[in-house]
């Protein structure tokens, strides 16, 4: 310390910490109570609400970190400026083992905690979290063996859906039963798409030759927007649609009715398969 | 613009030597990473076997080609290592060793190109066929690069005689490292593409 004896050193650290503590104390509740309810994707399904919780908790946890550094920068900019026009040097401090170690430990703890918490959500509290898990799902919700399978077929540039438990009829109209575990089997006929049911909290890439499974259990009846989240060519931006969560009974009647109306065409519709391998048009015309 | 003496005049030779040595090792690492991509492709596509088309018809490029090509590469690497080893001593083996290494290397490239004309399958015949053609083809290209480097040293030897040998040595040492690593890649390629498939 190159301070002259007796000169009072302002207690910068304390000031910064106080400001930071006050701001955090105000901000965190605000984030949780005001912003929290509006965080996506909402609570239409178990998976969606798990994601909403993850977003809320991350926002709340990261707020104080953001504030700490912003407060520090602001304080430094205000009070560590050079007085007058003459260039003076600051105190030659090269580091402080205590501070460095604390910083390392604190950041490491936060990071590991976040990773553990995220993993817990992904593995236990909401297995899969609505994300596509590939042909053999690693994280399966309870009762996944009874899940209603719905195949999502991405093609340039539309989504179509097949219901294997109802004779594998195909439709452009996505309906799924409420309060029932549904297994989306997402696949593609040409290039890579990504099936994004926004409010439902489902996102799974549609990859040719891959049966990408995503579990979801809808809570509320209602409709949700479907978009393509992976660039797939000219009309990528237009691959949107609307899906509906309907009461289980309505779903069953609708499905069996569809099955019968499509009966005449079923002889053309190929058999249901988990993946389809369109031969590349023998690479010539 | 005012001009000083050339920088290199004040620069001792060991700078050049160290640069070549270190640079060669980094280059070897880069080459290794390049082929790791194909190594990954081999195992990944083999494991996925998507649509059952990894190697549906048990395609076999044929030992009759694979072994000679591989042996040429090994021979070239070995001879060149010996040549460089002797370069540190009396340099007796340098000329025969490096010339023969160049010859064998070229032989490997030629054999590889002839094999393509004799190949029983085309690049479109599944994942294995794709990896085989891509890996061997690019391996041949890399070999040509190494052989160019080798040729410059041979040519310099021929042009300037033994006086040039001290100047050639750093470059030769560096080439030995890269050529050795590329030789290892060749070994892996031979085992995977001809034996494992």
């Amino acid at each position, binding site marked *: 310390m190159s301070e002259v004896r007796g000169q009072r050193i302002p207690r910068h650290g304390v000031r910064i910490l106080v400001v930071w503590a006050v701001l955090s104390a105000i901000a965190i509740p605000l984030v949780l109570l005001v912003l929290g309810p509006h965080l996506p994707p909402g609570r239409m399904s178990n998976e969606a609400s798990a994601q909403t919780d993850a977003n809320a908790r991350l926002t709340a946890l990261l707020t104080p970190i953001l504030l700490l550094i912003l407060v520090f920068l602001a304080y430094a900019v205000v009070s560590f400026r050079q007085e007058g026009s003459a260039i003076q040097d600051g105190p030659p401090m090269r580091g402080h083992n205590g501070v460095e170690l604390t910083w390392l430990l604190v950041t490491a703890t936060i990071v590991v905690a976040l990773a553990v918490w995220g993993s817990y959500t992904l593995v236990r509290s909401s297995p899969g979290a609505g994300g596509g898990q590939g042909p053999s799902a690693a994280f399966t919700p309870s009762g996944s063996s009874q899940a209603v399978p719905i195949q999502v077929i991405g093609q340039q540039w539309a989504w179509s859906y097949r219901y294997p438990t109802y004779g594998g009829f*195909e439709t452009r109209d996505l309906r799924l039963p409420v309060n029932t575990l549904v297994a989306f089997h997402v696949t593609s006929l040409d290039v890579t798409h990504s099936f994004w049911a926004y409010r439902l909290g489902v996102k799974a890439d549609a990859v040719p030759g891959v049966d990408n499974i995503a579990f979801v259990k809808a809570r509320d009846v209602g409709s949700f927007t479907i978009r393509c989240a992976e660039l797939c060519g*000219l009309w990528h931006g237009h691959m949107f649609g609307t899906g509906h969560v309907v009461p289980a009974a309505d779903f069953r009647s609708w499905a069996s009715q569809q099955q019968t109306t499509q009966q005449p065409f079923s002889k053309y519709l190929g058999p249901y398969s988990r993946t389809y391998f*369109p031969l590349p048009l023998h*690479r*010539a015309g | 613009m005012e001009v000083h003496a050339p920088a290199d005049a004040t620069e001792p030779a060991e700078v050049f030597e160290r640069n070549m040595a270190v640079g060669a090792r980094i280059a070897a690492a880069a080459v290794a990473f390049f082929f790791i991509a194909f190594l990954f492709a081999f195992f990944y596509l083999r494991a996925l076997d998507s649509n059952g088309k990894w190697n549906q018809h048990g395609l076999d490029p044929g030992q009759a080609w694979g072994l000679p090509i591989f042996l040429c590469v090994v021979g070239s690497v070995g001879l060149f290592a010996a040549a460089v080893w002797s370069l540190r001593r009396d340099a007796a083996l340098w000329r025969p060793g490096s010339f023969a290494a160049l010859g064998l290397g070229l032989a490997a490239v030629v054999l590889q190109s002839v094999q393509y004309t004799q190949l029983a399958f085309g690049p479109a015949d599944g994942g294995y066929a794709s990896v085989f053609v891509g890996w061997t083809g690019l391996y041949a290209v890399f070999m040509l690069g190494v052989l160019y480097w080798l040729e410059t040293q041979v040519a310099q030897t021929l042009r300037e005689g033994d006086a040039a040998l001290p100047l050639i040595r750093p470059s030769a040492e560096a080439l030995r490292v890269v050529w050795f690593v590329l030789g290892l890649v060749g070994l892996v390629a031979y085992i995977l593409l001809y034996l494992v498939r």
Partner: protein
Amino acid sequence: MSVAARALAVGAGVAVGAALIAYYIVGYLTVTPPVVAATGSGPQTHLTLQTVASYGHDPHPDWVSYLVKDPQGTWVHSTVFRVPAHSLVKVTVLQYDTATGLRNPFWGQPEGTVGGTMTVDGKVLHQLDPDLASHTFAIPELGVSVPLKGVADDAKNQCSVAPCTLAEAHTTVSFVIRTGKPGHYRWQCFVPCAAGFILGFGGPMQSLGWMDGVLEVV
């Protein structure tokens, strides 16, 4: 170098650079097919299209393409149509291309047309064998999708250069669609008919003016 000379140099440099960039980017961005209005008026307007296996002219003689007949009755190489809102449009497609077959047989059923049917060479059909389909005319945002029956591969005097004439082998597909509220609706073909492009979905299948278009409902 004098200031004036430098100024001149900079000015020239800036001018050249700006000109190049403008030409380079804006130039290619403004190439779009012309808008063709549907013929007739009143409750039902008419849209007459033809598909041809190979356009036969520059820039892409080998590409498969749609053409449209403008109110004067001449064939225009465009896929941007203008139709009135909240009205019926009778679409007639003269199909000169042979069958490629649908990748997803599902599109073999006419959807979104009035009555859910289409008329193929005078016969009213509710579905088409997917392997006979040569193209589809689909406006996903309006729920419209109609498979277009292809010409038999062994048919006599097949058309190879646009515009094709009625004398050449073709099938006639017609259907009526109901336009909704105003807006721009994209339309496309679901048959992987882009010969040569792997998966058959490159080139013309991803190019406005060939197998993709826009329906401007006004």
